[in-house]
């Protein structure tokens, strides 16, 4: 069959029928063209990918279209993190396209990262042709088998006739309910350019085996509100689900109405304005003293879109010992998974929070003012401990100071992606986000190397916005190759490297729990990051003195069209405090050494 010109492929301009055809003629497309057209019909802006043998037909179809932009990464892990960062910042589905075999296996880390944080993503992987599947063909792996435990769902498309519907299902599953990554594995023969079939992309799709909850149970919501209003020492504990469910406004309205203290997990930061008086800071292993103490003493815990992760709960036996627990989550399997819940509510957090606020207003019920005043008095006492204090007179740059300076220079208006380790915790503690989807990090899987490619996805989504990646010298090297992608697409990301020469968090644990035996946590033989950035065509800067930092950051962010790599040499011995050691309760925090002699809880 003749090659079809690109402009004839859109549904609005169906290809003229070759012969007599019934009904309104659907365009005839090959599997490769269907794949690309389906992405366009789904409204996909960017595809992050890397070509290879099994996806060459798809790339050829992609070459002829410009409605969807392909971003060529330098490693498939980068493609998945970039799509992930795009999804986290926009709320839309991130899309990747990688080849079979090593393309797919390289993508697995990014898929697992998205899975752990419930990020909507569709990953299209090429596969060897169907007749040779199972024969250990060149670049063959069982992609569906390898990815099965780390996806929300996956598909192997065996017939071109199933392709459009499968892609529709993939987007539907990825973006609805509790979101997650979906892999669509497409064998090369299914994308054969010489086999064309009528194409129709379904506008809607229903699946008998999949129907996520749309509303919370009204009776349960009433019961929860009653308990909330009766509480003497309530705490709202929110997680990534509030961000994912676009429930930030509803949350803020309810919490302000009630006047309750609120804390958040690492994943939920920004869903409630962090500069607000009612916000206690992050909770958990490196949470604030006031947040963790409030968790320990509360009599009514209102958990919203959070999953009681072990980094949050500490030792389960010591978790919220006095509390009745209300838990709102769209995923029933999150409820009572690790911690027994008294009032479970399954539903999208946004509608449940709106319903809760409506119940509060309808019933005219008010929280117990006297009790709440006493509770705030207690919390303010805890705040007085000043658990995030650090040495501000240090002649070397303290990492906390670097983050505070970043906040100052960017006026809090920043999309900040992060890698994993001490710098991640310092950013969470010292950069208060007032909006959701601004703090982008790998919380569940803790993937070093996430930050830089994620920042690319964010910057593409918001080309005018300031985007920075905070990182450490160990993390950044894990996906350093993506500096080339940033050059190719002129992405003016700012890398803020807190360079302490160590894998800082590993070093901290070794100091605390292994008597300072620093086994392989010293990153010997580091590159010169300034020269490295320059060799990729970027701007590199190094800062070693606290009083030079603000000027350097201001200069970096003033270069609005350049990628700037800021190598900030920080105190190698600094630790993240407060800290709850593994297996301890919320009331057993380690505070900064300057105050550890204090008598605590």
């Amino acid at each position, binding site marked *: 069959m003749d090659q079809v010109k690109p402009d004839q492929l859109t549904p609005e301009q169906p290809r003229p029928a070759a012969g007599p055809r019934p009904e309104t003629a659907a365009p005839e497309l090959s599997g490769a063209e269907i794949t690309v057209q389906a992405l366009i019909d789904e409204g996909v802006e960017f595809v992050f990918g890397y070509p290879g043998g099994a996806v060459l037909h798809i790339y050829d179809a992609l070459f002829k279209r410009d409605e969807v932009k392909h971003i060529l990464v330098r490693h498939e892990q980068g493609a998945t993190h970039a799509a992930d960062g795009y999804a986290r910042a926009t709320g839309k589905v991130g899309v990747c396209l990688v080849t079979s075999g090593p393309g797919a296996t390289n993508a697995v880390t990014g898929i697992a990262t998205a899975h752990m944080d419930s990020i909507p993503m569709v990953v299209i992987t090429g596969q060897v042709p169907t007749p040779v599947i199972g024969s250990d063909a060149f670049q063959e792996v069982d992609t*569906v*088998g390898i990815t*099965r*435990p780390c996806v*929300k*769902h*996956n598909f*192997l498309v065996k017939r071109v006739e199933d392709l459009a519907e499968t892609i529709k299902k993939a987007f539907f*599953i990825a973006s609805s309910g509790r979101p997650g990554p979906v892999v669509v594995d497409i064998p090369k023969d299914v994308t054969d350019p010489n086999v064309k079939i009528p194409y129709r992309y379904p506008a809607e799709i229903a*699946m*008998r*085996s*999949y129907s996520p909850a749309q509303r919370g149970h009204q009776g349960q919501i009433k019961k929860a509100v009653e308990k909330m209003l009766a509480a003497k020492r309530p705490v709202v504990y929110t997680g990534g689900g509030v961000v994912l469910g676009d429930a930030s406004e509803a949350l803020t309205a309810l919490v302000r109405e009630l006047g309750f203290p609120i804390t958040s997990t690492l994943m939920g930061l920004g869903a409630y304005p962090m500069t607000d008086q009612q916000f206690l800071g992050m909770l958990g292993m490196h949470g604030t003293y006031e947040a963790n103490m409030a968790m320990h003493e509360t009599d009514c815990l209102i958990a919203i879109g959070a999953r009681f992760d072990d980094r949050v709960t500490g030792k389960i036996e010591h978790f919220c010992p006095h509390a009745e627990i209300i838990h709102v989550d769209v*995923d*029933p*399997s999150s*409820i*009572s*998974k690790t911690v*027994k819940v008294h009032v479970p509510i399954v539903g999208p957090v946004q509608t449940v929070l709106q319903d809760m606020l409506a119940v509060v207003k309808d019933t005219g019920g008010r929280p117990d003012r006297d009790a709440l005043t006493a509770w705030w008095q207690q919390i303010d006492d805890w705040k007085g401990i000043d658990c995030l204090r650090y040495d501000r007179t240090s002649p070397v740059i303290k990492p906390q100071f670097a983050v505070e300076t970043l906040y100052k220079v960017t006026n809090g208006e920043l999309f900040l992606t992060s890698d994993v380790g001490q710098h991640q915790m310092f950013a969470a503690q010292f950069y208060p986000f007032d909006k959701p989807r601004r703090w982008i990090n790998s919380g569940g899987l803790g993937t070093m190397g996430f930050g830089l490619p994620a920042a690319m996805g964010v910057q593409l989504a918001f080309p005018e916005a300031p985007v920075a990646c905070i990182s450490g010298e160990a993390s950044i090297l894990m996906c350093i190759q993506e500096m080339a992608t940033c050059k190719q697409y002129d992405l003016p990301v700012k890398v803020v490297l807190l360079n302490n020469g160590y894998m800082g968090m590993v070093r901290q644990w070794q100091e605390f729990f292994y008597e300072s035996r620093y086994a392989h946590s010293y990153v010997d033989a580091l590159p010169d990051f300034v020269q490295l950035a320059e060799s990729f065509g970027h701007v590199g800067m190094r800062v070693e003195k606290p009083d030079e930092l603000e000027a350097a950051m201001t200069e970096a962010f003033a270069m609005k069209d350049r990628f700037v790599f800021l190598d900030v040499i920080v105190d190698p011995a600094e630790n993240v405090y407060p800290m709850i050691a593994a297996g301890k309760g919320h009331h057993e925090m380690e505070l900064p050494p300057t105050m550890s002699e204090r008598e605590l809880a």
Partner: protein
Amino acid sequence: MRHILSMLVENESGALSRIAGLFSARGYNIESLTVAPTDEPTLSRMTLVTSGNDDIVEQIKKQLNKLIDVVKLQDLSEGEHIEREMMLIKLKAARPDREELKRLTDIFRAKIIDVTDVSYVVELTGASKKLDAFIESVPEGLITEVVRSGPTGILRGEKGLTL
């Protein structure tokens, strides 16, 4: 406690491995697993026997329901139900033991479905405990092999596990 979970599952190639993989990944017990097509060609019926305390079994059910390929799930152990398992057992039936084995087969209302000079194949259907009891009753050393289907089950009464 032992639970019999009955499921309608999409008749897709990956469905079985998703379910088996869930159990190994999350460290749940599987005692047995049977699966076969139903009258509706797009659906398979799966019967899975597991054990654990109430919290664990509750979590198992939630996790199974979360799988896209699981259309419906029922915990048969929660209500009145019938459980059946089929066993084929090959016995060494040489002259001195033949009569004893024949009597045992009759007592259990089992059937001898294959006979040679030195062996019987016995078919027995019933609740799993009955099958266990038969195996216990066979004199020592006379079992050549045991093939069990794993339990299947169905609810009593008019209600059924359907779409």
